[in-house]
């Protein structure tokens, strides 16, 4: 019956135009870099707990730092936290949530045969690969890789007075390429959602996952070009000798302005925070509904609140720069706008609670991770209020408090959101189930150490621990807190080891896991109506949409507690 459309290995798995394959490619890329960046975090933690003591063999100390006898020297330490931040933000969680699940889920959930521009989609992935090669290539330079912090403020990133060598230059180039990849993805996602929704799939019938990813793409399309512009200026400073961001004693000609870089960086940088978190919010909103067997509470309000946050995020970049001596009036305006974000955030947060309220909750691994996002994002959001308030921020700026805060919001929320997504969509991606027991184990041994690590970072920061110092034991006022640094490190190592359970579960389930049925979770969205393997082109006949995305426990449906979006409810 089925006459197979012959494709070579290359066009099927490598240069595929199928959004599902490209999604998986992004997934592999993201998972590789999560582990890579996570390992760097452990090395950073080792130095903070045991300054200038040799890194043990099981953290590869004698291989990585052979020339210093296993000790991380200050330059290498700078490179570690720079690349940890860069890789985790741009190479790990961006490809995971936006690249992998954006690609895999959007067309399936809106009933589209593929992305609007499949070729652009493929080019987007391979641009990201090119960016990765450039970034990793910087490790092989004699002067080492970039070391100016993930923000790379001039003059730290300037050719004079900053980081010497080509590592920082390659970093700038790699980030520009990664941004180009994001822009191409964004164009694709936006147009796909606008043009390729199945008949009946109105905007307010789209799953909230699609809402989150769509808003993310809009922010990406607007703001990634801004950082691209800043990076191009920085690249010119570093290569052809312009002095856009160099002033004062370092400059040979007048007119440069290092603060300009900070503005450009954060005009992009703050929306970037929401670029990363919006998909996680959307996924969590949907998953809470699936596993509570209830429609999402206040669906429209959640969608509108997320849109409001996305809009407000464009106007708050100055709260990263309170200590740069900006005008108090400007500072207060930024503070007001930043605090305003808590209103729409609280709206969808209470909607999440409303979804859970009186639901018949099933604690499957995706649900555990989705619920944990509520916890970690709750803490991250509330501590954000301290950073947003000028008076508190003057003290907390650039301390470990900020590190703890943004790891709660970006690292913990987004990573747990990704785990929720992986556990949830794994049966659709690989046609097999992940082991639920190992999933739950992975959750608990991740969740507890993670909170210990990031919460105590905030305690350290409140004690005055600066975020980028090499050796905290050099400071008298930090000496009494060294024991806390040590504990954080051991819990971070536990967190790292816990991910081995996930890696094992992922690979083992992919190869030998139990075969999954078409709809193992009893979910109502469109992707679960398709039998595996889903062909290139997805839907045999274009589905017609009758219901919202969260039709659970509808009393009109008799035999089961869910009904697909494409099945009419007979009354």
């Amino acid at each position: 019956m089925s006459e197979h459309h012959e494709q070579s290995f290359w066009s099927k798995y490598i240069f595929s135009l199928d959004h599902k394959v490209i999604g998986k490619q992004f997934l592999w890329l993201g998972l590789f870099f999560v582990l890579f960046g996570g390992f760097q975090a452990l090395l950073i933690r080792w130095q903070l707990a045991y300054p200038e003591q040799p890194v043990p063999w099981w953290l590869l100390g004698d291989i990585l730092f052979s020339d210093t006898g296993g000790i991380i020297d200050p330059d290498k330490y700078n490179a570690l936290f720079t690349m940890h931040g860069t890789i985790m933000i741009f190479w790990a969680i961006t490809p995971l949530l936006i690249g992998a699940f954006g690609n895999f889920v959007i067309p399936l959930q809106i009933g589209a045969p593929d992305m609007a521009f499949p070729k652009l989609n493929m080019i987007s992935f391979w641009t990201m690969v090119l960016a990765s090669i450039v970034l990793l290539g910087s490790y092989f330079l004699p002067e080492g890789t970039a070391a100016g912090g993930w923000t790379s403020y001039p003059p730290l990133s300037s050719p004079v007075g900053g980081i010497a060598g080509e590592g920082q230059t390659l970093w700038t180039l790699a980030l520009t390429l990664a941004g180009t990849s994001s822009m191409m993805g964004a164009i694709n996602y936006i147009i796909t959602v606008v043009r390729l929704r199945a008949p009946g799939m109105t905007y307010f019938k789209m799953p909230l996952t699609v809402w989150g990813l769509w808003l993310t793409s809009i922010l990406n399309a607007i703001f990634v070009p801004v950082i691209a512009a800043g990076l191009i200026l920085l690249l010119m400073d570093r290569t052809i000798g312009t002095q856009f961001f160099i002033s004062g004693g370092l400059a040979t000609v007048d007119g440069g302005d290092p603060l300009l870089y900070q503005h450009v960086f954060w005009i992009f940088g703050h929306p970037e925070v929401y670029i990363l978190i919006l998909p996680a919010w959307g996924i969590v909103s949907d998953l809470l509904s699936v596993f509570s067997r209830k429609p999402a509470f206040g669906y429209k309000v959640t969608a509108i609140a997320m849109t409001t946050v996305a809009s407000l995020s464009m106007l708050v970049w100055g709260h990263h720069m309170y200590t740069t001596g900006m005008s108090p009036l400007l500072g207060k305006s930024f503070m007001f706008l930043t605090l305003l974000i808590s209103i729409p955030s609280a709206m969808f947060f209470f909607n999440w609670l409303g979804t859970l309220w009186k639901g018949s909750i099933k604690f499957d691994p995706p649900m555990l991770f989705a619920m944990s996002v509520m916890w970690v994002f709750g803490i991250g959001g509330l501590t954000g209020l301290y950073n947003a308030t000028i008076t508190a921020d003057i003290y907390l700026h650039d301390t470990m408090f900020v590190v703890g805060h943004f790891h709660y919001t970006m690292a913990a929320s987004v990573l747990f959101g990704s785990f929720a997504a992986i556990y949830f969509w794994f049966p659709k991606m690989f046609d097999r189930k992940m082991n639920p027991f190992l999933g739950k184990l992975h959750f608990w041994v991740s969740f507890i150490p993670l909170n210990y690590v990031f919460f105590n970072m905030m305690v350290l920061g409140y004690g005055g621990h600066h975020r980028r110092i090499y050796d905290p034991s050099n400071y008298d006022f930090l000496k009494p807190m060294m024991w806390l640094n040590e504990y954080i490190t051991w819990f971070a190592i536990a967190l790292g080891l816990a991910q081995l359970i996930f890696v094992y579960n992922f690979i083992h389930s992919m190869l030998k896991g139990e075969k999954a049925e078409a709809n193992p979770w009893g979910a109502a969205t469109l992707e679960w109506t398709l039998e595996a393997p889903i062909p290139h082109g997805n839907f045999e006949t274009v589905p017609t949409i009758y219901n919202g995305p969260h039709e659970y426990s509808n009393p009109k449906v008799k035999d089961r507690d869910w009904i697909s979006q494409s099945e009419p409810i007979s009354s």
Partner: protein
Amino acid sequence: MTTQILSKKIKVDEFTSTLGTIVALGCITMLFVTFFVSYSILRIQFGMWSRPGTGLIPITIAIGNTIVLLASSYTYHKSAIYSKTHIDLAKKWLGVTLGLGIVFLLAQLILWDVLVNAGFTPKSNIIGSVFYLLTGMHGLHIVAGVGALALVYLKLNKSYSDGERSNLFKQVGMLWHFLDVLWVCLFVAIFII
């Protein structure tokens, strides 16, 4: 059967392509908005700003180039109209557009050469840095635009269904006219004010 039907090429209609082009041009706009804002901040802080280069040659080349690009938009428009009826005329006008694009790039290089020889380089001061940034980034986009024009020219030889041809003409046209308008903004920002 099913697999084959499902995996056939997705037909992208003209409206979808147009929306995609609009978003892409929006990205380029944001890139140049950032450049222009940076320019204005640097210029306000610097105080004494002067036009790049002295004498008649630079401004003459710049004015000439503005005329060249405006003319190329016109010739492209002609070509797009003829593409529906007379392919050879469309090709002729498109060839002229392509030529004008290349003339523009060459003239920009001559302008750079004149200015560098006069001691006005990206390193000489912030005015130079901004000048070479803006013209360079615009020039790179023109290179891409000329590439797109060449692509249309090559595709004109093939038998293309009318829908696809008019779609291609429309998308590349939007890019080309956009780059034209961008140059006019650049010209005013650099050479007039």
